[in-house]
Structure formats: structure tokens, C-alpha cells
């Protein structure tokens, strides 16, 4: 489904389809978009109990986000105050454990040279290591919507390729949003639950009918 279809589907469900105007609900598409964004975040970030998914979560890459990824070419700019190079993310990235919403940062024409993610709190530990003096080994650190790079990145590249997991509201209306692993129903149910239309579903697939969240 495209983003527009996701929104329309929820709207028609809540509004009552083609019911007479007096009876039809009046749910604004922008509100629905925000609730859908929450539902996508909730469902896709949910800790899973199935072994297979636990293994997938334990790995650095979680396959379920690949279908929600878009690529962007980002300019590398200089922050002269901090003497660092950075790029600005063009979209809000889905917040996933270990900053996995940023799937990959690479040179624009050499995706085999991946940059390495680093948390802000690791910077002071890592910057002094000899390993960082090796040519081509670049780290990036996320600060809000900016990616700060380590090292002398501008010697090599003026732009980078960023593969990012978008939050739902960052997609274009015509973008096809492929939800992995049969999550459509959960997303619809969570959205309707958030909007007060129906009780939230039992969102933990643990084989019981008890309403639990985890």
C-alpha cells in the first residue's frame, strides 16, 4: 500500500466510508498520519518473543526494516566551530535500538566501504585510538538530525550515501510502504486503538487472549 492508501484506509474505517455527511466521522488525515507513525514505530520496534525474531534483533541488522529504507545523497559540510565534518539528515529517522534507523553510511559510489556507527558517549574513548589513524576508517555519530564524522573525511569524499529507515510521516504520499512480516493487521489495529476506535489488540503474540503489552 502507498502511504496515501494507508491513511485513506484508516480514515474510511473511522469515518464510516461513504456514510451520509452528518454521520460520517471527521478524522483529519494529518492526525491519522501521526497516529500511523506511532503505530509503525510501536509495531516495528516491539520486542518479539519468537526465537527467529529474537535472533534477528540480536544481529546488528534487523531485516524487517529494509523495506522501509530509502537512500539519500548527503553533502558533507564543515562545522568550523568544532572542527568536524557533518551531514544533515533530510528526514526524521525511525528511532530503532542502536541507531539502526541509519542502516548504512557509505561513499556514494562504493557501498563496500561502510562507515561505522558510534554513540556520542564513545567519542572520547575512540578518538585517541591508533586504529582511527588508518586511512578510510570513518565513524559517524548521530546528533539530532546531524551526522558528525570522525577523521579527515573531506580528503576522500564530498558526499555520502545514506540509507535511512524513515518514520511513516516522512514518506511521500505516493511511496509504497511495504510492511514486513505480515504486520499490516497489527498496525491497523494499533492505529485504531490509539485513535480510540477500538480496544488495542493483544499486541504480544504469546498465544493468550490477555491484553498485554511488552
Amino acid at each position: 500500500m502507498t502511504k496515501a492508501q494507508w491513511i485513506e484506509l484508516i480514515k474510511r474505517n473511522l469515518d464510516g466510508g461513504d456514510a451520509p455527511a452528518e454521520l460520517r466521522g471527521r478524522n483529519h488525515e494529518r492526525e491519522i498520519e501521526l497516529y500511523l507513525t506511532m503505530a509503525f514505530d510501536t509495531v516495528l520496534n516491539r520486542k518479539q518473543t519468537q526465537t527467529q525474531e529474537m535472533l534477528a534483533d540480536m544481529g546488528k541488522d534487523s531485516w524487517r526494516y529494509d523495506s522501509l529504507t530509502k537512500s539519500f545523497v548527503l553533502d558533507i559540510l564543515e562545522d568550523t566551530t568544532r572542527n568536524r565534518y557533518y551531514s544533515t539528515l533530510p528526514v526524521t529517522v525511525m528511532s530503532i535500538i542502536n541507531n539502526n534507523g541509519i542502516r548504512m553510511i557509505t561513499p556514494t559510489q562504493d557501498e563496500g566501504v561502510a562507515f561505522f556507527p558510534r554513540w556520542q558517549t564513545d567519542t572520547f574513548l575512540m578518538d585517541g585510538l591508533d586504529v582511527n589513524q588508518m586511512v578510510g576508517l570513518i565513524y559517524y555519530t548521530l546528533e539530532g538530525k546531524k551526522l558528525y564524522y570522525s577523521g579527515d573525511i573531506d580528503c576522500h569524499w564530498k558526499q555520502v550515501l545514506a540509507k535511512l529507515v524513515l518514520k511513516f510521516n516522512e514518506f511521500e504520499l505516493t511511496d509504497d510502504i511495504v510492511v514486513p512480516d505480515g504486520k499490516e493487521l497489527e498496525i491497523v489495529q494499533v492505529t485504531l486503538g490509539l485513535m480510540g476506535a477500538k480496544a488495542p489488540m493483544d499486541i504480544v503474540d504469546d498465544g493468550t487472549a490477555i491484553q498485554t503489552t511488552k
Partner: protein
Amino acid sequence: MNVNQIRDWVNFELNKHQSGNTLNKEEYNLCLAWANAEYFKIKYGLPEEYRPGMPLPRQAWAVSQKIIDDLRRFLVGKGGKNLPQLTIDINGYADLPDDYIHYSSIRYNGRAVETISNDVLGDRLQSSIVYPDKSYPLCVFYDTYLQFYPKDLGYVDFDYLRMPITPYWDAVIVDDEYVYKPSSSVQLEWPDDTHTDIANLIIKYASENIRDFGMTQLAKQRQNDGQ
């Protein structure tokens, strides 16, 4: 049926030919005009039938294809086949058409314009989520005009219901008898299958007038039952 045939039916039902004193021209035209207006009001919705949390009467505009068929002749489409779009000035104002009675839909570039009540206008204009823009325009009804947001929409399609033309039965008296004049009469605009309902309303008014409460009761029952 024409207005003369309806009059014949009313007289028959009220047994007026037999008892004499048929509805005179002024009385019949008064009832005809009243029934025409009341029938329109019933068809697009009586607010008296609203229930708490359910602002929908038994009959309302667009509630069924039957109602749409009954009222279709009064649905005016500005921006449709025969009329230009509604013009919005640079301040976002558009004059309500003189014959406007009931809103049906407003569209900007094919997209529905949301109509909101005046009491929530401030909230919507200041909203960080549901603020108006060209993708999600708003409009508010005032006495003689509509106010649109954003203000620079320029033109919109505007579909609304107008009042039916007031029917008129014209006749001259010849030999103490009314002789119907079809050329100067104005016929009902309603579809033929609704004429019996309108005749029934006239019977209700006339029977009230002559204090024939049995007939009034019968007319009300027929109005409720639809037959």
C-alpha cells in the same frame, strides 16, 4: 401530476365536491406553497428528529438513493456542467448564492473542503496539526458569505440545495366554476412519485383548517406510513 390534478385529489379526499366549498384559489395556493416548502424541509432533514449524539433524522440529504432522487432537481452544482465555479476573493470571501439553502459539498481541485463551525475556527487556525492549507482547506459559513482558509484558493466547486420553485395553481372563474389555466400555472418541480405525499400534506393543512380532525389524523398517519 400537475397542480390541477393534485387539487382534484385534495377535493376528493376532503369530500369537498359533495359538501361544496372547495378550497378557493388563494387557499389552495397557500397550502400548495406551504406543502412544497415543508416537504423540502422533511426531505433534507428535520433537526427535531435528532437524538443525542446522533444528528441524523429519519430522512436526510444523501442518506439514501431515494432521497437523492427526490431532491436531485434542487441540487445546484457551481463548477459543474452548467454553472461557473464559486469565486473566492483575495480575502478568502465568497458570496453565498441567493438561492442557497443546504450545503452538500465543496471541493478545491477535486479535494473536499472541510466545513467547520465558527466556534472552533481559532483552534483550527492555530493548530500545529490540523491547520488549513491548500491540501486541507477549510471554510466557515456566515450570514451571506463563506470564509475560506487559506484565503488564496481562488475558485471552488460548490454543490448545494436550493429551494424548490413555489408552485402556483392559476384559474379563472367561468359560470361560478374555476377553470384551470395551465399556461400561467407553475408546476411542482418534484418527481412525480412524490406528488401524492405533497397532496397529503395539503390535505393535512386543509383538514386542520376546516377542523376535520379525523381527516387530519388520517393524513398524519399516511405521512408516517408513506402510503
